[in-house]
């Protein structure tokens, strides 16, 4: 594709910023669905790192690509199971705030 002259650091800084946004949302939001979306953001920032390092350090190998592929697969599984759990929580409490689900806290 496009033969880019972009330094590696740019991609890493982008990934770091997206990781920060993900962590911030993970801690501050109450809604379970939004928390799950923050996890997806974190996973995606890590994926960008893998692909960028693969291109800039070992452009003739494919390890980073495959790790990203498997991360995507695991993320899909995780989203499916988590949404099933969220639907169960909704049936029980009629909303999905994390603060309602504190039975195992004490």
């Amino acid at each position, binding site marked *: *594709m*496009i*033969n*880019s*002259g*972009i330094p590696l*650091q*740019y*991609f*890493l*800084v*982008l990934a*770091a*910023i*997206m*990781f920060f*946004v*993900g*962590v*911030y*949302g993970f*801690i*501050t*939001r*109450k*809604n379970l*669905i*939004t928390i*799950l*979306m923050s996890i*997806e*953001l974190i996973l*995606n920032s890590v*994926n*960008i790192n893998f*692909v960028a390092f*693969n*291109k*800039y*350090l070992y*452009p003739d190998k*494919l390890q980073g*690509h*495959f790790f990203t*592929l*498997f991360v*995507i*697969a*695991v*993320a*899909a*599984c995780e*989203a499916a*199971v988590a*949404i*099933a759990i*969220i*639907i169960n929580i*909704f049936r029980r409490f009629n909303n999905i*705030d994390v603060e309602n689900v504190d039975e195992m806290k004490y």
Partner: protein
Amino acid sequence: MLSKYIFYFLSSVAIYAALMVLISKKPIHSVLYLTLAFFAIAGHYILLNAQFLAVVHIIVYAGAIMVLFLFTVMLLNLNIEGEFPKKNIIKFAAVIVGGLILITLIGTFRTYDLEIIKNPTLNQIGLVKNLGKVLFKEYLLPFELCSILFLAAMVGAVMLGKKDIQ
């Protein structure tokens, strides 16, 4: 030069969408902004010569996972406003936790000195032909394990989603 402008554009779209995921009050807006962020990330993959990965990313994330989220949000009728962050101290703690990671990472990148290939020119490496050859030779076991994982996740999701298990 052109690729640099594309990079800046895609990055600003990705970061804006990621921020809007957290800022927007309605969950449905968050989901749609997250889809936008995923498209921007797919553009980054194309910039990084990972064409196959970009396509898979769009299919799996924007096609499958986001539809799952959207259906859940619509099914559970979660479109209620007013759900907003907890106390200020938690926000503050989140900024510190995330900000420390951010500062550490960026500080590391600035002073970082690896054997980097400045202008990688191998453009065809991310195409499906090369990936398939390596995937079915060297990564066959992880690939099969992935299918087992998917089966387990599918069974688990159906079991959890059933009305009364007793």
